[in-house]
């Protein structure tokens, strides 16, 4: 995040990347260029397995172009405009859908998504959901014996039991919490933030900083996802960190993929979009992207996923509503959080 100003150099990086990417793919005739975020293509992410599985069936070559995260994907597309090489954009979340559509770069997918099941029932003619997660407060069972059972309890609880949250100006989880509080409290949201403020140890620019502080023991709670404990159970063999189930319900983040209007081979792009909702892709997602699958998987999910909190109620605002109000709500949040 120290390199926050890098978007400033966006055009240059874009130019360099655009020059560099086609070379790796020139061997095959059919190339599918997928724009996505870095954690998807990292060695630990689902990227490599996804390529392997798709290339078996498509007789093509998949080439990734990755940027820091979903929000930057959209920025990148806006910067590149019509000259973008992207056939597929994978990794936007539902909050960005209306802004992404407004750019006019995306084409309707025409894929049958009847098998896709997302809590809250998101469907869209341009974007296909491929995984989801609920935001949740993760707590440390060693230092917190009685976690909050609702957002109300979180807001009104003991101010000495701190929580680390992310900044809605700079991060997706931060924006998620903002929308969550707005969904639950409505017009009272500012007052709720005014109370919650005393429990907030600090507001970090991104998820990594917040989670780092949390696992270092600085605060017994952090804003993350319901799936975070699964990572600790599967990868680290500990169930020390658990998600707190909130009675009001949880806000959801749904990740989506879409094809661009200037996709070189629209049929191939469409194949990829139906592939991401299919068995192969969905089976890769849970233990590589640490999100919930939106459709059937080959094998049942690992045992750890069964222990996760499954929210009874899901909050999801329409992306139009988010796009229209985000600035005002962030202003409200700033005012409430900056008061002394």
């Amino acid at each position, binding site marked *: 995040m120290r*390199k926050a100003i890098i978007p400033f150099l966006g055009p240059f990086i874009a130019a360099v990347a655009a020059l560099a990417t086609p070379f790796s793919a020139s061997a095959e005739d059919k190339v599918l260029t997928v724009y996505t975020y870095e954690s998807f293509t990292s060695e630990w992410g689902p990227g490599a397995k996804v390529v392997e599985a798709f290339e078996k069936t498509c007789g093509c070559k998949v080439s990734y172009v990755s940027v820091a995260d979903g929000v930057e994907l959209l920025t990148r597309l806006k910067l590149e405009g019509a000259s973008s090489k992207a056939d597929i954009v994978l990794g936007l979340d539902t909050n960005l859908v209306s802004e992404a559509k407004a750019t006019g770069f995306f084409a309707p997918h025409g894929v049958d998504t009847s098998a896709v099941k997302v809590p809250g029932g998101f469907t869209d003619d341009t974007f296909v959901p491929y995984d989801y997660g609920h935001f949740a407060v993760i707590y440390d069972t060693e230092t917190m014996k009685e976690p909050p059972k609702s957002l109300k309890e979180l807001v009104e609880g003991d101010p000495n039991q701190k929580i680390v949250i992310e900044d809605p100006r700079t991060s997706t989880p931060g924006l998620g919490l903002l929308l969550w509080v707005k969904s639950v409290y409505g017009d009272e949201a500012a007052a709720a933030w005014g109370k919650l403020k005393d429990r907030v140890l600090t507001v970090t620019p991104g998820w990594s900083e917040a989670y780092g502080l949390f696992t*270092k023991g*600085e605060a017994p709670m952090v804003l993350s996802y319901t799936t975070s404990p699964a990572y600790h159970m599967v990868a680290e063999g500990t169930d020390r960190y658990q998600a707190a189930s909130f009675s009001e319900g949880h806000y959801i983040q749904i990740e989506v993929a879409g094809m661009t209007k200037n996709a070189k081979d629209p049929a191939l792009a469409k194949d990829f979009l139906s592939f991401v909702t299919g068995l192969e892709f969905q089976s890769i997602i849970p233990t590589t992207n640490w999100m919930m699958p939106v459709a059937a998987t080959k094998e049942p999910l690992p045992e750890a996923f069964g222990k996760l909190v499954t929210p009874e109620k899901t909050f999801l605002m329409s992306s139009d509503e988010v796009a229209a109000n985000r600035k005002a709500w962030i*202003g409200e949040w700033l005012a409430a959080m900056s008061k002394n």
Partner: protein
Amino acid sequence: MISRIERRLTIAAGAFCLGGIVLFVCLAAAALLAFDEPGSADDDVLFDAYVWRVARFTLLQASLSTVLSILFAILVSRALARQAAFPGRVWIIRLMALPLGLPALVVALGLIGIWGRQGVLNTALVAVGLDQPVSVYGLSGILVAHVFFNMPLAARLMLGGLERIPGEYWLVGANLGMRPLSIFRFIEWPAIRGLLPGIAGLIFMLCATSFTLVLTLGGGPAASTIEVAIYQALRFDFDPPRAIALSLLQISVTAALLIAIRLLTPTADEGHGGGRRVRRFDGRRGLGRAVDWLVIAFAVLFLALPLGSVVSSGLRSDLVRLASDPVVQRALLTSVVIALMSGLLCVLSAALMIRARQAALSPRRPAMVYRGLAAGNLCQFVAGAVGAAGRSGGGLVSAVAAARRCRPFCAAFGHPDQHVDGAALRLSRAGAGNGHPYGPNGEACRQPRARRLASPAADRLAGVAQAVADGPVVCLRLVTRRSRGGGAVRFAGYGDAALAAVQPHGRLPLDRCGGTGAVSRLRLPGADDCRHATGRGG
């Protein structure tokens, strides 16, 4: 002397580099401006209140961070300069190069390992029976982090400055029996003062553009810098014109401050010595030494504890497996290649710009001096404010800042025939005891001070100025004056050697010393060619 053509080429090369940097920044800005995104006009009210608050906080935290870093760095660099034999001194200086090379998040977690709620400090406080934890989140945390990052940088630059003080100064200082305060005032401070505008400007820029540390340790959105607003404008809002407006605001705040620093601190001359091996004579025993050791120990703890905390969490996370992981190795290779290439590029362009500045500084065209200065500053704050590619930008800035200090000694040394090799003054006084009858460095010339120092013994001064080694001679004139019940001894040296040594930075013009009272010329051993240096009064 360089030829006219060489000079022009040098200047052209520097101008080319500067132009390249400016072009690079401007092209990026222009590309962003070309995006005509609607929607920046409707939230102007929010923009104003918010942006001004953020700008105010940026200014506040960056100024405080700069002042604290510099004060701490003065203490540390002075202690290190005095204690040349401090055990592990070289390693301490190397340790000080480390913080700037670390990612902000790693440093934040390291600092929290020490200063955080569960950190070493609070654990210790709880163990002693205090239960209220010291909270690092807020302005204090930001300051601790910024001092951690920047104090070592400043201290290293200042230490370089202190170590460039010619050995003659220390000889004379010791022979005059200067007290630590006087040494600081007349020898060390002038050397540091000359470096301050560069160092302060650099640190201010690094702190003003700080982002992760400010948010993570700031405790809430009340602690936001302009950098956060820029990031926000480009990220969720995708509003390039606003981002550029904010960047311009940031650049002008920084530029205003740099100009202010430049105006407030006159540039001091570098000292010019004969290149003798530098040996200091102060701080060798007693209180001075103890204080120095304490300062160094504190600085080492301040730096090493958070680093240790980083290392210990690193060791816990299966370092061996990580190190043998091909992904990590590939990443390491990429880092090394990028770092080497950008480092090379930075040093090269900085060197070219400095050479160009020097060429432009030549006495024939004094106006260029100021243009050169302006150019140097410009690239400093542009590079800093735009933070071009993070670390490499910082590298360029440090390289420029560091190298700008290294003006060749000859630049201001106007009399090449008056070398100061080995010239040292040894003044001894019959019955010399404690006390400093001559006052430090010409200070004794001032009447009040002279009266205070007066002692009859001073009149029996057996002044021996000794030209150590074989350098040209120092001519010494002792002036004895009786006034109001006491005698004061004044001395004045003729020739740049004594001048440079006694009056390191021309603080007291020679003329104010000479001219009155009885003059006793001392014949110095081997001072036959005294004429050589006695321009006047001889």
